[in-house]
């Protein structure tokens, strides 16, 4: 296989014009239509209110305050997450850092801790952590793995030859990092930054606990203070717009080039950089990151488990049943979101015509929308067109899949982009049908991305609250809804077991996510 592949010369610069595969196109259009439902709902609501009133609601001091709050936070957190994520990935993958295998695992795990549990942890112990500073701390700690994870995978898969060449040509380790390594992983860093900013747009629980006002908290408040859908919808439209701007920015920066190594043997581990006297400071820095992002929230959950004075600790059976539902819903949603992402990613990467790109972009819009808006949109459409699915678990799972589709998509897209087209073309030239090729060649090549997508969506769905409260079947509890019920009642001790269960459930996919990235590249066409 390796020999075959390396003999076929198909440089990325040569664009072979091919027809857009119809099956993929139809599937992608259906996915996009599904994902645009919430936007359709917003526009319907907006039309009902009338544009005049909408403008009145939008162009006022509060909108500006929210905008400043959000942008100020997004810029700083994204930059910090990019710095920490990339730095940590480089230390773990490219240097002789002591304990790097353990650190590689621990650095991923903050993904498993819901941001609102982190916020709750800091606020319940150190109330001074609040407002802007608190939001920067909590969100950076919670989101840097979204950069760390893809970048470390990318570094592991990247061809070390370029770095080695740079070194033999006399470039120092620092400049090699800046001029070669960083360039290699730049698209990955950007993709990670995109995830971070989109996650910031949609975050609600942590900001609510930290008392930091952004669009999501305000949209929720507008629904909460009484039957004020117009104001909430107006603000949601602003968030959609911001999300589009972020995407536009990322799209402009993104390296459009398609790079794929064709020869199998070019993937091998290069020699690791000797850190020497920087060894222990580097370990200390990463340990600090882990302590803030992982140690603190877990410590606080344990503290409340032991110390909480709630007179009625929940029965363990209720924790078990909530955990069961949480796992079922999250896993099903993760599977569906991943499957939905695949045709869009294949279409967008293999036939990047303008119309296709527009289609692809449209699927990102949901990421900017708060869970509550997506839930209400589904309530609306379900009641009008599919009353029998209303308040069934199916609708909730669908909401999760829509809500977290962009997370799945980013992961799937990255791996499709990195799978060598040449292999598919060889298989085609050997007489396989397009579907056989997709099943036998493409799918195995993108499998790591699918697994990563599954884990990302699962981790996010486990902690979803606002859409869950609206859509969950009556009488069913999830871990997040129970955590909310008890913290809303100041029963921190009673809430703690649910937080602990959320963390425990998320640790497995968290580890899998880390492990998968760790192992797959050695066997398969790797991400780069």
């Amino acid at each position, binding site marked *: 296989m390796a020999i075959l592949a390396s003999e076929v010369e198909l440089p990325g610069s040569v664009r072979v014009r091919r027809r857009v595969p119809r099956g993929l196109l139809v599937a992608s259009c259906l996915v996009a239509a599904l994902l645009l439902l919430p936007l359709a709902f917003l526009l319907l609501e907006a039309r009902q209110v009338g544009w005049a009133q909408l403008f009145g609601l939008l162009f006022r001091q509060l909108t500006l305050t929210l905008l400043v709050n959000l942008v100020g936070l997004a810029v700083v957190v994204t930059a910090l997450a990019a710095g920490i994520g990339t730095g940590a990935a480089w230390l773990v993958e490219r240097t002789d850092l002591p304990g790097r295998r353990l650190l590689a695992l621990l650095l991923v795990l903050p993904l498993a801790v819901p941001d609102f549990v982190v916020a709750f942890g800091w606020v319940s112990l150190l109330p001074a952590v609040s407002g802007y500073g608190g939001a920067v701390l909590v969100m950076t700690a919670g989101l840097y793995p979204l950069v760390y994870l893809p970048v470390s995978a990318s570094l592991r898969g990247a061809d070390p030859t370029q770095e080695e060449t740079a070194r033999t040509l006399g470039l120092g380790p620092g400049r090699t990092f800046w001029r070669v390594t960083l360039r290699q992983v730049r698209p990955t860093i950007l993709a990670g930054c995109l995830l971070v900013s989109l996650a910031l747009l949609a975050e609600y629980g942590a900001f609510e606990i930290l008392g930091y006002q952004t669009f999501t908290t305000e949209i929720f408040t507008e629904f909460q203070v009484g039957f004020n859908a117009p104001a909430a919808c107006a603000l949601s439209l602003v968030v959609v717009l911001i999300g589009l701007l972020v995407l536009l920015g990322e799209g402009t920066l993104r390296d459009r080039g398609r790079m794929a190594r064709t020869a199998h043997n070019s993937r091998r581990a290069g020699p690791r950089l000797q850190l020497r006297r920087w060894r222990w400071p580097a370990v200390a820095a990463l340990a600090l990151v882990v302590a803030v992002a992982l140690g603190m929230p877990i410590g606080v959950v344990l503290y409340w488990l032991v110390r909480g004075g709630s007179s009625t600790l929940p029965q363990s059976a209720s924790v078990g049943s909530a955990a069961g539902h949480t796992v079922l819903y999250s896993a099903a949603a993760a599977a*569906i979101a991943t499957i939905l992402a695949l045709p869009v990613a294949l279409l967008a990467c293999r036939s990047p015509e303008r119309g296709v790109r527009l289609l692809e972009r449209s699927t990102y819009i949901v990421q900017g929308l708060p869970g509550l808006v997506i839930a209400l949109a589904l309530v609306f459409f379900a*009641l009008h067109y599919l009353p029998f699915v209303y308040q*069934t678990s199916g609708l909730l799972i669908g909401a999760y899949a829509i809500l977290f589709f962009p997370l799945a998509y980013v992961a799937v897209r990255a791996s499709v982009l990195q799978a060598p087209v040449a*292999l598919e073309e060889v298989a085609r030239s050997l007489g396989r049908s397009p579907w056989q090729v997709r099943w036998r060649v493409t799918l195995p090549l993108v499998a790591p991305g699918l697994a990563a997508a599954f884990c990302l969506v699962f981790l996010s769905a486990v902690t979803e609250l606002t859409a869950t409260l609206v859509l969950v079947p009556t009488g069913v509890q999830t871990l997040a809804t129970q955590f909310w*019920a008890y913290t809303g*009642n100041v029963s921190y001790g009673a809430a703690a077991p649910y937080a602990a269960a959320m963390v425990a459930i998320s640790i497995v996919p968290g580890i899998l996510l880390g492990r998968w990235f760790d192992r797959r590249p050695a066997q398969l066409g790797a991400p780069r």
Partner: protein
Amino acid sequence: MTRVSLGRAGRLLGAALLGLLGATLLAACGPTRGPATLILYNGQHPETTDALVSAFERQTGIQVAVRSNDEDILADQIVQEGRSSPADIIYTENSPALEYLQGEHLLASVTPATLAAVPAKYSSPESDWVGVSARVSVMVYNTKQLSASELPKSVLGLADHRWKGLLGIAPGETDFQPIITSIVHRYGKAAAVAWLKGIQANAGSHVYPDNETIAARVNSGQIAIGIINHYYWYRLRAEVGSAQMHSAIAFFRPRDPGYVLDVSGAAVLKSSAHKAEAEKFLAFLVSRQGQRILANSPSFEYPLRPGVAAAPALRPLASLRPAEVSVAQLGDGAEAVALLHQVQLL
């Protein structure tokens, strides 16, 4: 082709995905429910409701499935669901959500016997919902930073410049709107707007999502003073222990517009297919047994049924002197929200 294959892990993953899809479809086919399961949309604190529901189920054998969320979101959901609402009962923390649903003509009348269990002033004048319990708005202050004698006598005093940097507010909290409505009722709109602007300036960045947060922040000394419903302070004390309390609560002067009694109530929906059973649940909420459960639960609310005493830690309901503003005058809170929008607190 042998080298590039899914591998065992890949096949396992594939099988797992398919299995999950299957499970989802099965789950999506919906839970099977007996005919007499009541569906309760619950805006009250879920812990309180769970205690009441399990006692009701034991007593009557009627099953109740609870759906908990913020009461205003539940009310909106019921309006969207309209005639096909699966809900039989709505039970809320505050009256405005019920008044709103009453205005939309979605509530069924409560039977006179149930209404008679609590004083008429705590229930809907149109008999569409029944009052179940009550809470009162109070000041909470940090005892290291302030002494009781320094506190304002009226809620209007909190707009005074003296509280700049010391006050925290939760404008989005449902319990806050009745105070605004009460001020409008007593002193008029202009005074209410001036007051809102004053407390907005005093609070600065100390704007919080809810009463729980205000209670916790006052207790930890982040802010010196705030307005909450009394029970959040008692719950905080029960949770963290008396030794950790560095705050106290204080009442406004009698009949002050900031001294508001908020009523929690329940109603049966017009669209309910189980009205008789739902009515039984309402009757249970205001029965001696139901009211005792409320009084003895860690919720620290006032039961409304005469003869059932509140938790001993509380000042008795009969000795309270709240503002003279009726539940009908508190209405659905729309005017208060409009004022909050006007001053950009929302």
